[in-house]
């Protein structure tokens, strides 16, 4: 009886699936996906901690924000440019979404197109942030608590974006080399989730540093 059960476990739940390899793929995919989402969750906590620190420090000297350092009032950051740069990043998020959709529908050409724009916009955002850093007159990273929280948080986010761009390029190459099939493309899914996650973090940072 034991044998019958063990073999029951074998195939019965999977009659509707394809072969053994597909079962293996689907089950490992579910695990990897869950693991990846949990990783994103703990990454959210990382950002939240610094956001908490920022709000805490900021409230400790409300309403003098940006703070007065050595008697002169620090300027606000350049909202107009930040808005522009944000759109660049959000745009890349959307293009990435459509890249994945097109992959699912086996539309390789469109996939390549959207991947290209995603990476381009991602790099554009990084360039924009470099410009922003060059022009932010808030006393540098180690100058005061405003600079500290701003450069730490956005720098950490920028790091995530840079990693994401590398991630996407790698995925693109993999896709060209035919690593992914139309039914097996967990790498692309993970890349998309990561990229969306980075964008959404920016939504929060954009509000906290430029609009608040």
């Amino acid at each position, binding site marked *: 009886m034991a044998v019958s059960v063990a073999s029951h476990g074998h195939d019965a*739940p999977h009659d509707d699936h394809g072969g053994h390899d597909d079962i293996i793929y689907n089950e*490992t995919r579910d695990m990897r996906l869950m693991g990846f989402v949990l990783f994103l969750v703990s990454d959210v906590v990382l950002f939240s901690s610094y956001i908490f620190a920022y709000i805490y420090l900021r409230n400790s000297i409300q309403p003098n924000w940006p703070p007065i350092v050595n008697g002169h009032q620090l300027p606000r950051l350049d909202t107009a440019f930040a808005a522009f740069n944000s759109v660049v990043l959000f745009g890349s998020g959307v293009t990435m979404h459509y890249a994945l959709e097109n992959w699912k529908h086996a539309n390789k050409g469109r996939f390549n197109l959207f991947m290209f724009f995603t990476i381009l916009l991602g790099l554009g955002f990084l360039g924009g942030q470099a410009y922003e850093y060059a022009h932010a007159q808030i006393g540098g990273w180690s100058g005061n608590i405003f600079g500290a929280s701003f450069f730490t948080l956005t720098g950490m986010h920028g790091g995530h974006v840079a990693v994401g761009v590398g991630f996407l390029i790698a995925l693109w190459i993999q896709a060209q080399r035919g690593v992914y099939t139309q039914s097996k493309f967990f790498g692309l899914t993970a890349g998309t989730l990561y990229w969306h996650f980075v964008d959404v973090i920016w939504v929060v940072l954009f509000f906290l540093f430029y609009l608040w």
Partner: protein
Amino acid sequence: MATVAPGVPTGPYHAVLDHIHPEPTSFIRKYIFSIDAKVIGIQYMITGAIFFVIAGMLAEIIRTQLLSPHGAIISAATYNSVYSMHGSAMVWFVVIPLLTGAFGNFVMPMQIGARDVAFPWLNLVAFWIFPVAGVILFSSFLIGAPDAGWTEYPPISLQGPPGTNLWCVAVFLIGISSTMTGINFLVTMYKMRAPGMTFTRMPLFVWAQFATTPLLFIATTALGAALAALFIERVFGVPFYDPKRGGSPVLWQHMFWFYSHPAVYIMIIPGFGIISEVLPTFARKPIFGYKMIAFSSVAISLLSFSVWAHHMFTSGMVPWLQLPFMIITMVIAIPTGVKIFSWMATLWGGSINWKTPALYAAGFLITFTYGGLTGFFLAAVPLDYHEHGTYFVVAHFHYVLYGGSIMSMFAGIYYWWPKMTGRMYNEKLGQLQFWVTFIAFNATFTPMHWLGLLGMPRRVATYDPQFQFWNQFATYSSYVMALATVLFFYILFDSFRNGKKAGPNPWGARTLEWMVSSPPPYYNFKKIPAVLAAPYDFGNPLPYLGLDAAPGATEATPTSVSHPVPTY
């Protein structure tokens, strides 16, 4: 296909683990860079034991220093480094890795009927971070070890010796390792349970690990953030915590305790799990109130996220904010009490086989209750005004960390030792070791309660002469504890030399890890077993199908009046 027994499980089932990969043959792949969770668990245990010995020696240096009110042996500066390293090492490099990494890796996959964890390679990396981080931590002694206590409150930690930077790095690394382990375990327990192992059929140790994982991969990240900020402030002068530059010292305390209070439960909930396995096995009866114990672990885990500021009642927060933190802290006493009463009820009506693990479980019951009750004294804000930062606190957390976590670890090691090595330990010596530890432990830490109440602050290298007697008393008792620990390692060593063969199931336990040979085969189960019921129904046939051999499946008719309850 063929006919199937009634109640045959439908449930998570994993084809991928169904075909057995060949066992690696090279020594390196087999014992050093193994991806086998059991080997990794034992690696954790050995590394943790080494750090335990080192940190324990630091503890004895602390106690020896306090033999004299003027400091017996070392300078105040050295002393500060010593106790800081003792605390850091014990918390991050002994208790947490042992309870999650060691026991979790060795026991949990077998108990859920899996062949390994979800991400074996991640597991490998997570382990190897641990010794590396440990070496970094202790190498800080070479350049001036951190001296502001394991909490490293700024601003004093900003002026601390260069070793403080290494401390940040080491703890940050071990945090990454914990996070990996947490994610890995949660996915494993969620996705890889054997068919039929529903949540209410999981062994309670698995439940405990399950309740611990969120703390591991959520809270730990907050600590990482705090540490990174401290590091960049020390190295690059980026102002976060320095009040002279607009930062806030209290900010560190918030970020630090947001991790470090949940960490307290990372350090005890798996211990709860071990006790919940040991007691039914040796009382030969089902754990009492399975669901209550399982759910109370989860409740504690969730509540622990909202009590961190009870470490900061005197630090200067908004006064009214103290109340919610005090009350939620007190509320945690309820699920904890439920556990303790359930364990007592598990002893009731048993046919208790007082082997060493059982003794340690009972000892845990007593010392942990004591520690929990003193915790109540600290939770009450007005009392905390008096007790905060005194030896009362030291006594309290040693009661929960040594009397709780470490005792449960002793129980776990004696309990699973035959499974790990295939050999029994010397029972007589084991029981002797328990009694010596138990008595010496209480003699060491009980006096500290009233030392603190009478006015002895913590973290002092010298103290008021009026406290000398009880300090010496504690010190001499701590020497006895050290001897007991030496005896413990002798027992393990001895069991290698002339311990008799254990066989697959020396205790007649019923969880899945005892259904395979000792030490277990590379892939645990030739066939993934099917689970029909929770594991604790002694006197019933084992609730597993598909096991090649089911040792201990038959049991004599019960001597008590009750009769076996069929579970399927």
